[in-house]
């Protein structure tokens, strides 16, 4: 078992009512789990909790998160530092916002690598270029020498994935990784994320509101509403055999090419 989220509840600040209630999830190496739900359903909160990144006084008030046999909730700052980036890493909705806008990609990437691994700047630079090339970014040296604003949204997202994958983490958390992208770019990024699993055996949790993407990527799909899991199961179950009214309504709302025409 790689990750085991045991019945967690998460509260923010002094609000006694938990934002996320009794969520459980377990996954093995190489599994892909999709979490879908509408805005405000608590899907991002769950994966942020896994990486200890809950903002503004959020804390896990009940339950436990176990990664590779150890509980993450007791980690101190040092332990988190060694875990983040090398064991578990995260891709954000807009990687451009995570990259420092006034520094070139190269310098930041090298710093990031040297934080986790003892090596010279040149070695780190080569490693970064290699990773960018693997993410199919054309002319890696050119990208390293660019500022974030000089890259397109799709390229920035690829830089984000390349950085997240540098140390070959066991678990990748993707928070709406394609929501800000155009459809053709979205398809490219999704395909690359699927290849990560084939190539590195990475387990992925993808949070998205695009149910098509969730169904395509996920071996298992979790549907959340108001901070609770309302339904979970494999693709076939969620898409076609769900008994839950909310899930059925959600599936019926997704525009499809063969769907009902309104006009």
């Amino acid at each position, binding site marked *: 078992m790689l990750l085991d989220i045991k019945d967690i509840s998460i509260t923010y600040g002094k609000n006694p009512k938990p934002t996320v209630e009794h969520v459980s999830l377990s996954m093995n190496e190489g599994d892909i789990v999709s979490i879908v739900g*509408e*805005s405000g359903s608590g899907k991002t909160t769950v994966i942020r909790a896994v990486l200890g990144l809950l903002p503004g006084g959020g804390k896990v008030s009940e339950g436990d998160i176990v990664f590779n046999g150890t509980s993450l909730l007791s980690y101190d700052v040092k332990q988190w530092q060694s875990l983040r980036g090398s064991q578990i890493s995260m891709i954000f909705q807009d990687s451009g916002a995570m990259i420092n806008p006034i520094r070139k990609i190269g310098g930041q990437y090298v710093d990031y690598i040297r934080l986790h691994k003892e090596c010279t700047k040149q070695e780190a630079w080569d490693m970064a270029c290699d990773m960018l090339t693997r993410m*199919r970014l054309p002319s890696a040296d050119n990208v390293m020498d660019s500022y974030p604003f000089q890259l*397109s*949204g*799709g*390229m920035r997202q690829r830089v984000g994935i390349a950085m997240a994958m540098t140390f070959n983490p066991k678990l990748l958390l993707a928070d709406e990784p394609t929501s800000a992208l*155009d*459809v*053709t*770019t*979205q*398809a*490219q990024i*999704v*395909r690359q994320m699927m290849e990560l699993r084939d190539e590195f055996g990475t387990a992925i949790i993808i949070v998205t*509101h*695009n*149910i*098509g*993407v969730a*169904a*395509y990527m996920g071996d298992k799909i979790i549907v959340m509403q108001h901070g609770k899991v309302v339904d979970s199961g494999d*693709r076939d179950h969620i*898409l076609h055999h769900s008994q839950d009214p909310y899930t059925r*309504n*959600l*599936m*019926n*709302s*997704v*525009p*499809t*090419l*063969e*769907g*009902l*025409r*309104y*006009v």
Partner: protein
Amino acid sequence: MSERELVLSVKNVTRRFPASGGRFLLANNNINLELYRGETLCIVGESGCGKSTLMRMLLSLDTPSEGEIICLGQNIAHLKGEALRQHRRHIQMVFQDPAHAFNPKMKIKDILCEPLLNFGMIKKSEVDTRARQLLEMVELPGDFADRYPHNMSGGQRQRVGIARALAIEPDIVMCDEATSALDVSVQKTIIELLVKLQKEHNIAIGFICHDIALVSQMSHRAAVMYLGNIVEILPSDRIKDGAMHPYTKALLGAIFDLNMDFSKKIDSIESEIPSPLDVPVGCPFQDRCDQCMEICKKENPQLIKMADGHEVACHLYTQTRKEDK
């Protein structure tokens, strides 16, 4: 379908923005479009393809560098002053993000009735009753008239946005990504409302969208834009099977559809969209097209009619047409 009434036609519209170094950014290149009463025309394309620029020109928020926009028999491309103000009652807009589309300090009833008061269509004393009617038209409780925009959910706000656009009974409503900020279940109800209101009021809707699956469900015709050019115009019921342009096919291939074959790898074009600052000579799609030919690098293909209401701009089909003759 009986006689269709043309309400808006765009003729050879080009828009260039000056850029540094004496260059020009070609946002719209020779656009021709027609919009009929009671019909929905969707404009589909990726970010940066010029769909919002086109819409801004249709709404007289921007003026074309070349070409004419004819609305109800009048060229509106260069209207000014009072003539422009009077014209605005014919075309109204629904914005993408309803949270930012309203003055946060105005009550809903004032938001809804401001255009009516501006055009002198109601008296101040009628504001309350009229606002209630408008809210009921978009299936909201009349009590919302005394609320402020921040007291409402995104879907409710978007309904108010639609009510405001329809308040002065325009002939045309433009929606700029009106549902993309909303959750799918809310999106569905908003689309149903738009379609219902369109039938009741017989308005023409111009809808900008990047979700081609949604377009195929809710529009009569769809225009696909790429890098400032319209590459294909087709009836929406033909999108799934009848699309001809390689770019339209690429868009279709990149959709994650719930009915798709999940074991199949998703198709997508690998490369990036070129910068609109230096659009290649010839077909705009040449760099990413796997069926690119010699001629595509020299000549920009024009839209040619393939079937009734179906036009495509691609040399693949120009060739076959010539051979047929």
